[in-house]
Structures are given as C-alpha cells and as structure tokens.
C-alpha cells in the first residue's frame, strides 16, 4: 500500500527534454494508467519512479518519504519491463522464482507460489524452458509472472500486454484487473492502447510530448476530453473532429449544420463520437453527404460519409446496407454531446 507523489519532476537526456517539469500524485491503491503515443515519455516516467533513471530535478515520494536517492531494490516495487528483461540463463521457473529467492522465502513456499502464478498467466506447462525457447507473447507472460509473483507496495507495468494475441490480451486484462481488486496494490500501468486504459484504469493520465495533458477517470476523459489531442486519442473509432465556424449560434461547414451554445467564431472544431450519431432518412438532418465507406465490425457497421473536406463516421446497425456514393444523413442521438475546440490552440471551448 503506498501513495506515490511526483513533485516538480523533470527529465532531460542531455539537451533533450523528455519529461517537462510537472507533478503527479498516484493515490494509495489506485490503478493509474499512463496513456499516450509512442515516444511521449511514459517509459521514462515509469523508470524514474522505479529508480532506474536519475531525475534531472524534482522529488519522488513514496509513502511520504523522499526516495530520490534510494536504489531500486529498496523501493519495494515490482515492474514489468517493456523489453521483458528476462534472465536468459535461467529457466522460466527460475525467472519467476528469483524475486522470492532474493527475499529469502523458503523453498517449498517458493515452489507453490511459482506454480500458482504460472497458472495465472498460462505458463505452467513451460516452466522448465529457457526464455530463448519461448515466443514473444510467452516471454512477456514470464515478465508479468515475475512481477506479480510477490506483493510489493507498487506495481509498475510497461505495456505488459502489448505482445499478446488479441484473445489472451483480453483474458490477461481481466486477470490484472482482478489481481488489482484482490491485492489493492498501487499500480502504474503504461500503454498506448486507449482501450486497455479505459478498461483498467481508476484514473488515466493522457500524455503528449512528455506532458500530462489530462488526468481523470476514464469516464470523464471520454465524456469531456480536455483538448483536441485527447479527443482524438480516446475512443475507437475516434471522435469525429470537423473543422468549421460558428455564426449566430450555429456551427456550419460543408454538409454540417448544428446548433451550438457558442458565440461567433472562426476556426472551430466540432467533435462528436461515432456512437452518438445515427443514420436517418430525413434529408434535412444535421449532417449530410455521400456514403464513402461501410465497415462491418460484427456488432455494428461503421458508416463513413463525405461532403467536400468533411468526413464523418457513425456507428450504425449491423444490418445497415446502402450503396457507396448514395446520399446519406446522420442525426445526433438524444443526449449526444457536442464538443467544441479551438483549432489553433486545441483547447476545449465547450
């Protein structure tokens, strides 16, 4: 159990500013997800918490204690590395067992604990193999098992599921969520997959170029993205972001006319989620254009229409069928949210 506080931390690699000065508090028992595109500083942030990377300035506090100068082994952290970092000369069993051995657990308990953990990540049949004899996904599961075999104060997980196939990823996701529920250990989880972030997180920190641009619950981030970047990053398919202008309380652009609560203004971006639009026969509907693409996803069909530079996607019924290039109209569902952003700054207007 531990609260982690990053106070005004900053990380430079030479002259390159990887993480600009900022603060972040990770509450006790929280599952915090760092979400952002590749190269945005997620791994760097995590490595600073782990003590593997010196911080250029600022303080890291765990349980209220400043631990800047504590070596990793004294921080009571377990970590899943993005690159696994397995012990190639040890078998899978020895890999998973190693942290327990270092903590002086007796042999019999170690054996049980390893078996139990291996079963959780479906590795029990591979215990006597060496990492070089495993597939990428299996190696990743060894890395995961090695972290969850003990109960530290803090879990750090750097894209721990990125190399698993889709099915196992969903299973492991549920496993991790359950594990967190069971142990209640403070967890920092890094991913570039917004779906993983949404499903796992107590709170999500969306990062961009080293900076946390929004920190909130998944629900809030989905409902009220702080800026254009977050709006485009969260949700699948991503939010429609339509360029236009507001005049007389109406947002207008080619094929789109939506009443909004905003003063006259140019360079406005209207955001609306595909799942909050529906197809209509009404030719006077708010959004109109020609059908551009139909993609059946199984439970629904993604309908994309175009009108000039405007392109809008909606999630329609799985049975929906129409000819490409035929006219098509969309209306916002009841309770749909319009998000308005400033094109230039990306800031949220409403």
């Amino acid at each position, binding site marked *: 159990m531990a609260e982690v506080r990053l106070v005004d931390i900053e990380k430079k690699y030479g002259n390159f500013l990887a993480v600009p000065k900022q603060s972040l508090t990770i509450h006790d028992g929280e599952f915090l997800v760092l979400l952002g595109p590749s190269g945005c500083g997620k791994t760097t942030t995590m490595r600073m918490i782990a003590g*593997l990377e010196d911080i250029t300035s600022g303080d890291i506090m765990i349980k209220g204690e400043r631990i800047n100068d504590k070596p990793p082994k004294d921080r009571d952290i377990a970590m899943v590395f993005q690159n696994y970092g*397995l012990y*190639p000369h040890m078998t899978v069993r020895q890999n998973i067992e190693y942290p327990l051995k270092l903590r002086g657990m007796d042999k019999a308990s170690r054996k049980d604990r390893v078996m139990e953990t291996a079963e959780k990540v479906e590795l029990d049949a591979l215990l006597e193999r060496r990492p070089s004899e495993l597939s990428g996904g299996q190696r990743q599961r060894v890395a995961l098992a090695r972290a969850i075999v003990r109960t530290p104060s803090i879990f750090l997980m750097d894209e721990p599921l990125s190399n698993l196939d889709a099915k196992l990823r969903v299973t492991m996701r549920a496993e991790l969520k359950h594990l967190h529920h069971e142990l209640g250990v403070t967890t920092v989880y890094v991913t570039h997959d917004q779906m993983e972030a949404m499903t796992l997180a107590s709170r999500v920190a969306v990062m961009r170029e080293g900076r946390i641009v929004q920190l909130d619950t998944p629900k809030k981030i989905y409902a009220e993205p702080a800026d254009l970047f977050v709006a485009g990053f969260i949700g699948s398919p991503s939010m429609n972001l339509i360029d236009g202008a507001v005049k007389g309380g109406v947002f207008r652009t080619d094929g789109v006319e939506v009443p909004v609560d905003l003063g006259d203004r140019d360079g406005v971006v209207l955001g609306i989620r595909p799942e909050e639009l529906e197809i209509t026969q009404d030719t006077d509907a708010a959004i109109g254009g020609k059908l551009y693409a139909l993609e059946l996803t199984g439970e629904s069909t993604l309908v994309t229409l175009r009108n000039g530079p405007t392109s809008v996607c909606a999630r329609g019924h799985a049975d929906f069928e129409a000819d490409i290039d035929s006219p098509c109209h969309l209306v916002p569902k009841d309770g749909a949210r319009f998000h308005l952003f400033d094109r230039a700054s990306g800031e949220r207007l409403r």
Partner: protein
Amino acid sequence: MKKTLAYLGERALLTLISVVLLFPIAWMFLTAFKQPRDAYSLSLNFEPTLQNFVTVFSDPWNLGSMVMNSVIVATVTVLIAVPCAALAAYSFSRFRVKGRKFLFFLILSTQFIPAVVIVLPFFLMFRQLDMLDTRLALIIVNLAIVTPFVIWMIKGFIDAIPTDSEEAAMIDGASRLRVIKDIVMPMAAPGIMTSSIFCFILTWNEFLFALILSRRDAVTLPVGLVSFRTERGDLWELMSAAGVMITVPIFIMALFIQKHFTRGMTAGAVK
C-alpha cells in the same frame, strides 16, 4: 565451368596456406617421436619412439619442474587477473563516471609499450626486492601485462549484454554485487571463459620476461626450450618433445572453447 575453376582455385589457395601454416607444427610433432639420427630427415618412414619424452623429464633437463612452474604461473595469473578484470570491465561498461574514457585509454595504453623497454626496470626492481627467479615475480609481471588486455576483452562482451535483465534484477531486490554474480557473470560466461583461456595462453607462452627474470628455480617451459640449444648443437628431437608439451594443453583448451562456449548466452532476454 567458370564457377568450378574459381572453386578449385580457392581450394588450392586454402590448401597451400594450410600446408605452410601446418608444416612446422606437423614437423614438430613428428620430430618429437623421432630418434636423433632421423631428426633431419623428411621421410615419414622412421621408427617412432617415446624416448624423447622420457629424456626431457630426466636429468639434466628436468622438464617436470618447468611444467610445474608454467602451470602455476599461468593458473594463478588467470585466477587473479580474470575476476579483477571482470569487475573492472563491468564498471567501465556500466558506470558513467567522469574521466572513465581517459582512464580506460590509460589502461589500454600500457599495451602499446614494447616489452623490451620495461624488462630491465622490472629486472632491477625484482633484484632490489630479492625476488629474482621466483614464480611470484613472474606472476606479478604477467598480471601487469595481461590484466589490461583482459579488461578490454571482457568489456567488449559486457557491452554487448543488454542492461534490461540487470535492471529487472535490481527491481527484483538484488544489490549491485548480487546482480553481477547472478545475472551479469552467467550471461558473460562465454566471454569470460574465452578471455580466461586467452589470458592463460598469453601467460603460458610468455617468453621475454621469464627469460630475464628466471634462472633456475622459476624457469618456465618456453624458456626451458632454449636449453636444448647446447654446445653439442640443437637437440631438435628433445626440443620438439618439449614443444609438444607446450602446445598440447593450449590445443585442448581451444577445442574446449569451441565445443562449449560459442553459443550465445543472451538469447531470449529481451524482445
């Protein structure tokens, strides 16, 4: 047709090189089993004998004590040089200390000094210390010669090991020394083994310092060879027998490296 010609040419060249390289060694091995009267003959038709090996181990040659000296000097040198060098190499490879590049260059630069230049100071030094003709003196000198080289060699191997596994071990609760013992050394084992054998060979074959610093008690095998050049002429068959004694252990070690340590130890550590 053209291809076959090129192939044949290549083969012929390789064969020629091999013959030139192997001839002296083959000659030595054959001569070691010849009687004195056959020593200069190139004919393979001679009556083999083990007498030479018996002779070199008995008076006045007493090769036994030289074998002992060589084994002790080389083994102790390796046992001291390699662990020290491994730790030094690890530090050079992993710690970003100020001036480490210069320090590393300094260590390497010891290798640029011709041995002949420093052999006399060494001689004077050991005479002052009353350590001439002792194995300890030879061990100290060999350590000085070999350690920088071994540091450089092991550093190359450690540089090639990704740091991820080490970091994982530190998170798992290992101290730096524990990491070195449990993770780095096993992963670097092939390199360290290879370096050890190199170190052994260098010391085993070392001639100049042993020649100057030893006289009777601490004489090593390579120096011992010289004693077969007598006023009665060069005793080639005895020299060859002693040569075989020098070569065979090295030969066996080379085979050992090939068999056990060519396999990489880092496979599977990272993505």
